[in-house]
């Protein structure tokens, strides 16, 4: 398989955390420094650094070479591999559920017929009306 396949566990573990997902979303808009990344969160910079380390180990982000700023950058490939599978799974179930829609439409049609038949049956029939 692809060389990056083994890292999927790390990818999913990294994605399980909402702060880390927010960091990735921010980096999708362009590279950013640790300070910039920490700004929108109500947590300490060391805590952000910890999250960044997890993302780095999962291969989801890399560091820029600029000595001072060392901006973090999104690495799209591992993320694409994880979402590829989910996307395939989703497509299979989309096809299944589309067929299920058709089955349900048919059931609704049948039920309506039954209800209509019942209404017809319970209508008072003029000939059976009791004479006073």
């Amino acid at each position, binding site marked *: 398989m692809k060389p990056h396949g083994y890292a999927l566990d790390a990818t999913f573990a990294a994605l*399980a955390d909402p702060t880390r997902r927010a960091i990735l979303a921010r980096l999708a808009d362009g590279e950013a420094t640790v300070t910039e990344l920490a700004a929108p969160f109500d947590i300490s910079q060391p805590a952000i650094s910890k999250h960044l380390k997890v993302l780095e180990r999962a291969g989801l982000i890399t560091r820029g070479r600029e000595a001072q700023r060392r901006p973090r950058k999104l690495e799209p490939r591992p993320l694409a591999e994880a979402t590829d*599978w989910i996307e395939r799974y989703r497509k*299979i*179930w989309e096809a299944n559920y589309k067929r299920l*829609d058709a089955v349900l439409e048919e059931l609704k049609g049948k039920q309506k017929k039954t209800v209509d038949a019942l209404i017809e049956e319970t209508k008072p029939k003029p000939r059976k009306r009791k004479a006073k």
Partner: protein
Amino acid sequence: MTKTGAVKITTPTDRELVMTRVFDAPRGMVFDALTKADLVKRWLLGPPGWTMPVCEIDLRVGGKYRYAWQNADGRKMGMGGTFKEIVRPSRIVTAELFDEDWTGGETLVTTEIVETNGKTTLTTTVRYSSREARDGAIKTGMAKGVEASYDRLEALLQA
């Protein structure tokens, strides 16, 4: 307003996969379509090219179900499970396993069926035995996907 059509997939914990879809039908009907064999075999077919020659469902707690699929090219796939909980028309819990066990042991599948204003939200939670099992299943899924693409490529080259 609940929107019908789109399948939503999330991984809320490290051993779960959750799938949500809204249907334009009352939940009793959705429950039937999920649990009556003659209805299930009409829609639970997966990717194009597959049929479902085996679909047996013994709908009671402790009862078993057995599904098997066949592809036009001769490939086969099967799975079986046991009903752990049945609350008509709102909830089904099963333990299931593919014959090829590509999920790293049994998965616990919880199906929740909720109706709002005549529309039904179906939520399926698949709980794997461990994070490794879930990610393993995902990897196998990827490998299978790659394999399927190669199969198609091969068919194309032979044509």
